[in-house]
């Protein structure tokens, strides 16, 4: 139904629809498109980095540009690709899984997306004048002293997109706490919704540390303060602490939703309920809690002393316990099941050994004295790529195959899915496994060149070859998306014989999600109805009017105002005339807030008649 109407509309109408939408599903798709775009950009940067390192003393890119490349690769992949795509999936899937018609604050949801997207665009505009070059960790004092405006773009871009993420986190927490369908108790929530909740709590507590840190950096660079300036009594180690107080939970902000995704896919394709559901929920909380207690393991070599190093070493190793619980629970979910292996499942099954390696090197890194060797070498590069690619990227690709039919009503092509999987999977291990050894053989990370005769040539060559395989895999996946959009197989409501609520409604769902809110009778509600009930969800309410929010362009304009102001902040250092941009931008943003506050918008109602006219 909705596809047909969409196709009839012109491009302008579709664009306007997406600019003004407050529908969590459309915003979810926007997040995925935005994140996907930045993922390709970050991937291109990664490829250029690997080409530079294909042979010793290569001069493919210059030293300064190389530092910009690694900085932008890391920043883009973490803040603008991995996290937004996951937030997009949460946005799309979580309300459906808990049986809600939208998120709690649709306006805020739209604002969060535009802040992320324009923040990311702002950051990438720095390419035209010189990108940030102090690493994605942006350590002071190197970042404070960095010439040009690169680091200013980093600060303002991340501040904007960070604000968006924070709003998203608050929104998800309120949604899950207040909008679950009748009967959907906490301990009946699907694991993906659980991890969305826990991730949002992490965002709520972790992002303020980043916000504060970015403000300090902004004041130091633009307004002459000296928080990080040693000469004037500041301290540059403060940046590291604040960065990692945010940065370590950030790792769990990325990996917990990935765990959630696998916890949906494995039971579906093993035809078996998740083993140890309660333990999985508590392990998620435990990982999140411990995630705040370990930030200084990124700082073992800073010189914090043996007491701090020991405490953080032991706390770090402790995280292995709840993570291990999860791995074994997934294995035991497979055990005794009836396993179907398709593309979604391939990515999931590949995750288990890949992530286990990443988790194990994590424990190895946690041993502080061993870390004195690993720290800031390619061993660490290998470790976090095993966790973030082997965990998060595999999860995103699994989720794409799994939820694509729900989101777009078509099933991604299996053959191309498998080809993309195998090339990417092989390429991934080729690229990163050898890097463990490169690190221990004496190759520090962020090295623009490595010298001849240091025994590092072969390893780097293998690594670069792997990167080409990964690139090929991504290209096949893109072709698959285009092919599927044009002539992909149409998807029924429940193509995988799955277990959770999102599969009880049509693919793609109507904009109001559920005509009647479903009554949830237990964990895996749809599975219960399919095996013990009538085969479909029992409604918890009669067909009645549905209250929906109106679309609005205000979030977009408000964000545009903030972006203009950010530009002004960056360039007012050179010329005070740029302060006009600051005032104009802030006036636009505050004006939008005023309109939003004064104008009553009660939304609209879908009448009973309309609902009855539309087929199930």
């Amino acid at each position, binding site marked *: 139904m909705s596809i047909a109407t969409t196709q009839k509309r012109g491009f302008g109408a579709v664009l306007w629809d997406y600019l003004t939408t407050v529908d969590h599903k459309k915003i979810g798709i926007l997040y995925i498109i935005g994140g996907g775009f930045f993922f390709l950009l970050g991937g291109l940067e990664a490829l250029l980095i690997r080409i530079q390192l294909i042979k010793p003393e290569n001069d493919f890119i210059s030293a300064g540009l190389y530092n910009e490349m690694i900085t932008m690769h890391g920043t883009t992949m973490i803040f603008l690709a991995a996290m937004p795509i996951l937030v997009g999936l949460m946005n799309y899937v979580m309300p459906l899984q808990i049986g809600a018609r939208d998120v709690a604050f649709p306006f805020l949801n739209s604002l969060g997306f535009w802040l992320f997207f324009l923040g990311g665009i702002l950051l990438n505009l720095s390419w035209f004048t010189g990108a940030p070059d102090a690493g994605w960790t942006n350590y002071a004092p190197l970042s404070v002293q960095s010439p040009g405006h690169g680091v200013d773009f980093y600060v303002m871009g991340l501040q904007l997109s960070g604000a968006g993420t924070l709003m998203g986190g608050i929104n998800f927490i309120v949604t899950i706490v207040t909008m679950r369908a009748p009967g959907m108790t906490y301990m009946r929530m699907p694991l993906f919704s659980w991890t969305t909740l826990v991730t949002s709590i992490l965002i709520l507590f972790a992002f303020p540390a980043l916000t504060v840190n970015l403000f300090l950096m902004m004041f130091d660079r633009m307004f002459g303060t000296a928080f990080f300036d040693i000469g004037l009594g500041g301290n540059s180690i403060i940046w590291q602490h604040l960065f990692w107080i945010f940065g370590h939970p950030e790792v769990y902000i990325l990996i917990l939703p990935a765990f959630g995704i696998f916890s949906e896919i494995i039971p579906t394709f093993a035809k078996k309920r998740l083993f140890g559901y309660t333990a999985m929920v508590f392990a998620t909380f435990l990982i999140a809690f411990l995630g705040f207690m370990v930030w200084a393991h990124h700082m073992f070599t800073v010189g914090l002393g043996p007491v701090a190093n020991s405490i953080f070493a032991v706390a770090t190793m402790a995280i292995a316990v709840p993570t291990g619980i999860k791995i074994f629970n997934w294995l035991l979910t497979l055990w005794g099941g009836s396993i179907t292996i398709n593309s979604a499942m391939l990515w999931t099954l590949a995750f288990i050994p890949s992530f286990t390696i990443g988790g194990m090197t994590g424990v190895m890194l946690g041993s502080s004295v061993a870390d004195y060797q690993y720290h800031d070498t390619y061993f660490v590069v290998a470790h976090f790529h095993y966790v973030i690619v082997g965990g998060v990227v595999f999860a995103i690709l699994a989720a794409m195959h799994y939820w694509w039919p729900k989101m777009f009503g078509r099933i991604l092509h299996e053959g191309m899915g498998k080809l993309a999987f195998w090339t990417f999977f092989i390429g991934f291990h080729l690229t990163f496994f050898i890097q463990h050894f490169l690190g221990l053989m*004496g190759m520090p990370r962020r090295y623009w060149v490595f010298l001849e005769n240091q025994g590092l040539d072969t390893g780097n060559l293998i690594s670069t070859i792997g990167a080409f395989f990964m690139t090929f895999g991504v290209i096949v996946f893109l072709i698959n998306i285009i092919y599927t959009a044009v002539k992909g197989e149409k998807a029924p409501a429940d193509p995988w014989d799955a277990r959770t609520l999102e599969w009880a409604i049509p693919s793609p769902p109507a904009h109001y999600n559920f005509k009647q809110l479903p009554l949830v009778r237990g964990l895996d509600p749809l599975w219960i109805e399919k095996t013990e009930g009538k085969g479909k969800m029992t409604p918890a309410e009669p067909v009645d009017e549905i209250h929906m929010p109106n679309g609005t362009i205000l979030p977009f304009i408000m964000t545009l105002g903030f972006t203009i102001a950010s530009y002004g902040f960056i360039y007012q250092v050179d010329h005070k005339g740029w302060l006009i941009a600051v005032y104009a931008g802030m006036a636009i943003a505050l004006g939008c807030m005023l309109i939003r506050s004064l104008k009553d918008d009660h939304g609209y109602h879908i009448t009973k008649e309309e609902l009855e006219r539309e087929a199930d």
Partner: protein
Amino acid sequence: MKGWMGKSKALLLFTIITMFLAGCGKENLTALEPKGYGADKSMDLILLTTVIMIGVFLVVMLIYVIALIRFRKKKGQEDFIPKQVEGNHKLETIWTVIPILLVLIIAVPTVIATFDLADESQASEHINVEVTGNQYWWHFSYDGEEIVTSQDLYIPTGERVYLNMLSSDVIHSFWVPTIAGKMDVNPENVNTMFIEAHEEGVYWGKCAELCGPSHSLMDFKVIAVSPEEYDQWVSDMQNVDPEEVPADAVAQEGQELFEANSCMGCHAIGSSPAATGPNLTNFGDRSTVAGILEPTKENLVDWIMDPESIKPGNKMTGMYPSVSEEEANSIAEYLMQLKPSEITPESAGN
């Protein structure tokens, strides 16, 4: 019998890993063939954790592979619905308790080693060197010896040398993989670590914290010589006459140019504590030019003519009037003959 088989397999595995690891990397750069106290401690923990983790990995993979083979959907069983198991307390307890024990096995030696390597109580009884990290070179000043060098750090074997490290600009990290793990060199506080080399050798050192465009070119060397040779080196270095006029005419001209072009504004010869640029007292004995190039006169001429093309972003570029190739040659001739000691990288078996 079975237990013995298990043990021998573990031993075999351990041997294979050790051999594989030992075969990797360039001698005196790799952390996998440790030749110093700190690197030994790290290597012990690396091996311990690697063996435990490979054990865990094999268990995970065993369950994984069996599950995938046994429980893959079979033809003719399309409608088979497996038993919906909620969980199993006994199993869940097992895989909670065993990891806790494994973590303890790793944690205890980690904590012991952490305190061991941070022990500074005997620092005053040993050689102390003030290390300064600079974009993109290293300054070494020996406490109480009136010896200043840069790029090449001479130490005696079998003795702890305490390094008190501070940065003059941004954060650097001092790393000599074969003898010790790394320690950051911060601009705001002195970090102390000790290094101790077991055998003579020229060990590669690297900066391990991003410090600017030439971060990857901030190499240095630790030259470990026998205690006797070290004492010889100390006395040679203490007897340097910085004003000494070289015998060779070209070198003499170089010395004059060196002074005329205000090279001395940054580069000291002798034990002057000034450290705007690298100290050149024993330049002729250096194992490298600029930390990365072969120690030849040609390379030095190239460096003097255009340092920016060799180390982008270095602080020497543009600090002196441009010199002709001939002038650079004379300066190079002068610097290359600054060989105050018979103890050189060759003495350490370079």
